[in-house]
């Protein structure tokens, strides 16, 4: 069954732009990205849109559909009523390049600021066997497809551009948690999570978890555990005293 849908797509560049209207046919089973492609094929051949796998696994087609950060390839047209206008804009937390394409290099800069995995010195490949229970937590974060919807929706940088230098964002808090929980990682990331990556700016409003297309519980399983570990290191006098006495010489970390 086919019907005509009304689309409003943001078109323009950093110099300016606006929402443009399109009426376009929609068939059963289609997703928003299919419709954007149809508009590109039939009405606006110069419409810029980034996409790749069309299966929700590459993280390329991130955009905002009716104001909600989503993957266009995973947003079914059946979630809208036939008379409902569908508004598509680029991610609003990042600089726009053209139309629906944004410059997400902020995230690559932040990725480089996270110290990489550091196993103990002298540990040769194959010398350490990990139990499944030790890697379960980290594996959840490895599902991340780096669509950056969590980064985009986070109000800390979405509504406050000036916070960008001091705030890594939820995707990289998950990365920090993944490494901090890794049994073999030797870097203490707790203090720097607060002081260099700005985890204290997060106020736990959970939008990152709400928009994650992989269903990663970023707030409950990464950010809050990291905040608690930061509290171990910086805000818990009892644990600080324990570390001073020498039971845990590295500032209270438990292995």
């Amino acid at each position, binding site marked *: 069954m086919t019907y005509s849908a009304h689309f409003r797509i943001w078109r323009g560049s950093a110099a300016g732009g*606006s929402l443009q209207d399109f009426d376009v046919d929609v068939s059963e089973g289609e997703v928003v990205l299919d419709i954007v492609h149809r508009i590109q094929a039939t009405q606006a051949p110069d419409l810029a849109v980034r996409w790749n796998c069309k299966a929700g696994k590459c993280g390329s087609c991130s955009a905002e559909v*009716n*104001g909600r950060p989503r993957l266009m390839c995973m947003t079914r047209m059946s979630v809208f009523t036939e008379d409902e206008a569908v508004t598509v*804009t680029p991610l609003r937390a990042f*600089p726009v390049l053209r139309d629906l394409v944004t410059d997400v290099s902020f995230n690559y800069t932040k990725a480089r600021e996270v110290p990489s995995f550091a196993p103990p010195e002298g540990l040769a490949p194959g010398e350490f066997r990990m*139990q499944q229970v030790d890697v379960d937590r980290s594996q959840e974060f490895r599902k991340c497809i780096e669509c950056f919807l969590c980064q985009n929706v986070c109000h800390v940088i*979405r509504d406050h551009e000036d916070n960008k230098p001091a705030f890594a964002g939820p995707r990289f808090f998950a990365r920090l948690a993944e490494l901090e929980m890794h049994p073999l990682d030797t870097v203490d990331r707790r203090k720097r999570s607060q002081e260099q990556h700005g985890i204290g700016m997060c106020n736990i409003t959970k939008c990152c978890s709400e928009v994650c297309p992989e269903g990663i519980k970023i707030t409950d399983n990464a950010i809050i555990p990291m905040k608690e570990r930061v509290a171990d290191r910086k*805000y818990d006098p009892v644990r600080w005293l324990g570390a001073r006495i020498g039971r845990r010489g590295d500032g209270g970390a*438990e292995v």
Partner: protein
Amino acid sequence: MSSVTSAPGRAEVEARTLRSDRWWVSPAVTFGVLFLFVVYATWRAFEDRHYFAEPYLSPFYSPCLATSCAPGSSDFGAAAGDWWRLSPALLILVFPLGFRLTCYYYRKAYYRAFWLSPPACAVAEPHRRYSGETRFPLVLQNAHRYFFYAALVFNVILTWDAILGFRNEDGEWGHMGLGTVVLLANAALLTVYTLSCHSCRHVVGGRLKHFSRHPVRYRLWTYVSRLNARHMLFAWLSLFSVAIADLYVRLLATDMFSDPRFF
């Protein structure tokens, strides 16, 4: 309202949000319920009467530690002595209040509903500047674990209060009324809310790197994690239960209702 989402280089969109769903319903309901609870709890904390109806003690006044407490209500002694002239509830409410104020779920709820930071996902907040929980007073949210420890003590006290409900008005054991059920349900919900806390999850095992080296703590962590997934639910249920338990005791104390006795 103009958008603060805009910044040089970003796509120009004037609207504060383009969301077309009713995103404001959830923060509005949260605001309304929490506001009503705060008003009710404040009134009851300052009222300083109608909090004890033998054998039931309101959770807002438990433990009752001042000598001015109603006769028979100080099950843990009047440690605060007679210098305390205000309502005895004010002596102890800082602990459960602090536990809820610093709770990771309630932080989300009130940051969204009261401070609009943000009111909902992808809806611009009205504030020009934002420093999160990095400065005083919000940096004190990091003390949540200490309120968690205090909450554990309060759970024991409120459970004991509920057990005392198995007495009759003359203090004889082996009786039970609807008030006993109310206090038991309240103690159970508060305990589950406390045990589902994120700090609890961290303390019992979350801070470990090697679960495999600590099988008992890992098992505990899995139990708490299961509860933690429903932390929001327990937060609301226990909030309602504590208000209902207090209201029930007040109704009994003011003779507006008579406690149905089962045996």
